[in-house]
């Protein structure tokens, strides 16, 4: 009798325990931050981070009082806890969740123009910083090849070290590494998986099909026979050239020989 009663009770006990475990509600987003403020830990001693929505999905962004110090796209980390851990492993600073994002972050994400956002690249070598600074000057919705980066950053044009520097990008999306391609036009997603890069590019309205078509036609650069100027195919000026006036070029030299000059906005060659 007793034995049977025990057996009947067991599932009920499990249920009650499960229900109790479910009561462990997560703290409100700002709780840890309020604790630190109340205790009086100086703000410079830790980073805060927030989770923002963007056209290409959620983004974690961590920042100190005066600059953004790191970010990760949702698909790169499993959860907020992993982001916190990775951030600490990389910077040695604790990231505390906050609800108010860094000033200027929302507009930067909305428009894709993050060039003026202060970003802290501490811990990277001079070469890496130079490459990443050059990447920041690529406008939203446009692509640039690695040689362009080398020229802008005044570095030797060997691809190896530049790709390595790109892979170290601590602030994906805000430092737009997804706008860098190899010479052939294939995207160079060094710091994250290709599908992350694809999502970021399509969110900016970069039409990869059109670019593939152009590559098939042998067009690394695109010139206009009315202005006699040649551009990178994604340059805002190149996108305005109507099809009958498009003149494809394989090299900058060929364009020059045909009497074309380089665009001063996208700088396909030193102007």
């Amino acid at each position, binding site marked *: *009798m007793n034995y049977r*009663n025990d057996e009947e009770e067991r599932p009920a006990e499990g249920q009650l*325990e499960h229900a109790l475990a479910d009561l462990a509600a997560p*703290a*409100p987003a700002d*709780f840890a931050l309020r604790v630190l403020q109340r205790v009086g830990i100086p703000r410079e001693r830790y980073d805060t981070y927030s989770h923002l929505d963007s056209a290409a999905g959620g983004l974690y962004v961590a920042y100190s009082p005066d600059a953004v110090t790191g970010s990760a796209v949702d698909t790169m980390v499993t959860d907020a806890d992993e982001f*916190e851990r990775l951030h600490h492993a990389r910077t040695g600073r604790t990231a505390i969740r906050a609800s108010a994002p860094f000033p200027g972050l929302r507009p930067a994400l909305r428009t894709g123009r993050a060039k003026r956002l202060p970003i802290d690249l501490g811990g990277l070598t001079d070469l890496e910083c130079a490459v990443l600074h050059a990447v920041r000057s690529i406008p939203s919705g446009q692509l640039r090849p690695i040689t362009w980066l080398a020229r802008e950053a005044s570095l030797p044009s060997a691809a190896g070290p530049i790709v390595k520097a790109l892979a170290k990008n601590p602030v994906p999306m805000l430092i737009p590494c997804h706008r860098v391609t190899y010479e052939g036009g294939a995207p160079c997603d060094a710091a994250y998986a290709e599908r992350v890069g694809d999502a970021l590019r399509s969110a900016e309205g970069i039409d990869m099909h059109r670019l593939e078509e152009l590559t098939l036609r042998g067009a690394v650069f695109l010139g206009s026979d009315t202005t006699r100027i040649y551009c990178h195919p994604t340059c805002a000026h190149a996108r305005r050239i109507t099809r009958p006036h498009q003149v494809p070029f394989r090299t900058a030299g060929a364009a020059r020989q045909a009497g074309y000059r380089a665009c001063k906005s996208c700088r396909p060659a030193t102007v």
Partner: protein
Amino acid sequence: MDDMAEQLTERLASDLDDGFTELVRVHASAVRAFLFRVSGSAAEADDLGQDTFLRAYSALQTYSPERRRKLKPRAWLMTIAANVWRNHVRTSVRHPVSATRAEDACDTWVDESPGPEERAATSADRTVLVNALTELPEKHRVAVVMRHVIGMSYSDMAEAQGCPVGTVKAQVSRGIGTLREILTPEAAVLGEVTR
């Protein structure tokens, strides 16, 4: 997990401010969840949670680096949280503030019904359990919440409560028994009959 705990105490020992931010990051939500379920109020849990960490910080300031290194952060924080909660209950009994007793006499201004946060956290099914939890005697409630909501081990709990493991186990099992009686009165009667 053990690795992380070790890393945390190491940081506490070498640099208090840095270690403390990490302590807050890792344990803030557990401390708050404990206080929330013990007190039954989100606002109180926020206040008492801040008090807990304030006390923890001033205690850490007086500790030597060796002592900080040997710390078991979670059990230690739960000790402080339980003490803060106990003190809070005692002072509010001795010095009833307008929010509790006096307001009952005159027209009630304070809305005692659960706020948005409580309501979100305690949807339909849970409400019954949360209410049952607040009916438990204080000691049993603390023990049940530590064991089943936070998920602490009996040995950690014994350390946090400063009593033998057996005592803690008894408190949890009595608490669970009472909870079950409150939730399903007929089951309790059945149990008595068969016993």
